[in-house]
């Protein structure tokens, strides 16, 4: 498995204007029997995205022509709450998303996303509302996310800073492997174990 990397992204976006979207909606539990990470993108938002007969629900945003080729999801407040399943960012990344913009993310989802090169971008509610309104007027709106400067911008908007864990940022920019990093502390871990035996 390659280490995820991210520097900058300029891409079109779609809006899912629902708050408290839980990971059971992102990827329902019945798809968690996989023993790899493949194919989850097709099941992303499955119960909203497909009708009972399995055909695409034409009303759902990801089934509309404007969703074609989009790489940024503008989501509602508290996105990714609930279950810790890392299958949620796997499914989002599997679909082709590389960033999600919200006013708040659930903790475990945020951590899981960063480990999979999916950038959780937190912006203020006012900026979020403005972005949603702008996107409603212009389906071709392109956003630029720059991880080096920790900014997100769009035409007519000064790039906005967003918070991100500095360690995760470095890992993503430089392709640092987190497990490899942790393994460097083997000696300290042994010392800890000896002291607490």
């Amino acid at each position: 498995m390659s280490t995820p990397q991210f520097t900058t992204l300029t891409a079109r976006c779609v809006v899912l204007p629902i708050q408290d979207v839980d990971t059971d909606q992102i990827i329902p539990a019945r798809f968690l029997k996989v023993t790899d990470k493949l194919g989850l993108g097709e099941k992303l938002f499955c119960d909203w995205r497909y009708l009972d007969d399995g055909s695409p629900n034409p009303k759902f945003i990801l089934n509309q022509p404007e969703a074609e080729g989009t790489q940024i999801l503008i989501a509602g407040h508290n996105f990714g709450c609930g279950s810790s399943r890392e299958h949620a960012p796997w499914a989002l990344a599997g679909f082709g998303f590389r960033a999600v913009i919200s006013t708040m993310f659930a903790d475990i989802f945020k951590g899981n996303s960063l480990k999979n090169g999916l950038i959780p971008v937190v912006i203020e509610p006012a900026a979020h509302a403005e972005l949603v309104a702008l996107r409603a007027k212009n389906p071709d709106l392109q956003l630029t996310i720059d991880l080096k400067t920790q900014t997100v911008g769009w035409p007519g908007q000064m790039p906005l800073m967003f918070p991100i864990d500095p360690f995760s940022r470095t890992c993503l920019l430089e392709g640092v492997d987190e497990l490899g990093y942790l393994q460097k502390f083997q000696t300290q871990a042994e010392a800890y174990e000896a002291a607490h035996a």
Partner: protein
Amino acid sequence: MSQNPQTLFQKIWDSHIVAEEPGAPTVLYIDLHLVHEVTSPQAFSVLKERGLKVRRPERTVATMDHSIPTKGGYEAADEMGRIQLRLLEANASANGVRLYGLDSVQRGIVHVIGPEQGFTQPGMTIVCGDSHTSTHGAFGSLGFGIGTSEVGHVLATQCLLQRKPRTCEIRVDGTLRPGVTAKDIILAVLAKIGVGGGTGHVFEYTGAAIRTLDMEGRMTVCNMSIEGGARAGMVAPDDKTFNFVSGREFAPKGSAWDQAVARWRTLPTDAGATFDKTVTLDASSLEPMVTFGTNPGQGVAITQPLPQPSSLADANERAGLEKSLAYMKFEAGKPILGQPVDVVFLGSCTNSRIGDLRAAAGLLKGRKVAKNVRMLVVPGSQSVKQAAEAEGLDQIFKAAGAEWREAGCSMCIAMNGDQLTPGQLAVSTSNRNFEGRQGKGGRTVLASPLTAVASAVAGRIADPRSLLNGGHP
């Protein structure tokens, strides 16, 4: 006592720091790693790819709970489920990890067997690829859920990279009235703070109502901390905690026990220690709680009418409430009492322990599950099942017309054959009422075991207090 008064959380955090580098998260030592079949396969694959083995198999415990059918045997599982279960067997055996497998008489839901076998102890750091690892905080440990990448990190290094969360005290004063339980406390907390209210925090539950709860009640409360967005929920250990742990298979014995208890007694939050935030609740005024929406924070006292979206100022919140009510097919302003019920599910890591089953059976004894209702009783572990059968609880459930199953997550997660059909309404003792959580199109009302039984008997959402003195709902 240290010069600086510290919280329970701070003490455990500080005593588990392996290393800290500038700019990087803390390297935290993990005392106990619980593993199940659903969130571990890809983590074991990473180890295999890199030629690594589980670093501390003796600190790693595996069980089968999520995708295992509760009808018994692999045959009941579908092919992918079988592959997943077999893979956990192979991964555990290749790494020398103890597995409570299909044939184990102690197998069960990961958060039930940890405490039951004595793995869960005060002061520990405990992780699992499962958000309800917060359950273990009832013992005064720091237990939190992690993703599969992190499962791999802990398997390989017994350490985890973590940023220190903030702390939030949830103080519950007062005394619960009859018919009101630990489950109602936590549903009331969630209704107060909302599903995102605890984000970035670890909860410590304090106050007379929490101290009065037995260990199972404390587990029920801590279990649903994640439903408020908190990573963990904790209760300071006391004699109840030590009595629960004492004598269990993996608990310390002899002089090691005495030393452990002496250490555990230093864990509770010092007088004068501060939390980043405090939320208070009065247990004396609580009524049985039920959820009406599609997240666990959407709860009301069972006697109250459902909220009106028009009463919410925020447009997003209003839209959220409208969407939830529409999914649940409930009408704003109307009572939730009396809504017809199709299924009652008694189980899950929130409410499937022996005390839950006793309380439920106590209320159900001599009564019948309503004709139109399917009631499923699923013990949290095979040990709970045996204990319940030894007491004859299974007979009470069966005589009332309920199904009595093997241990597992069952209908809490609907990936093992137990599930709602579209449109069905369930009163469930589990922890999540998300859309489709208990089966595609299914509608879930979360409640206590007592409320679940009262609703099963009435065939409608019913107040358990109506049954308490031998009454009819």
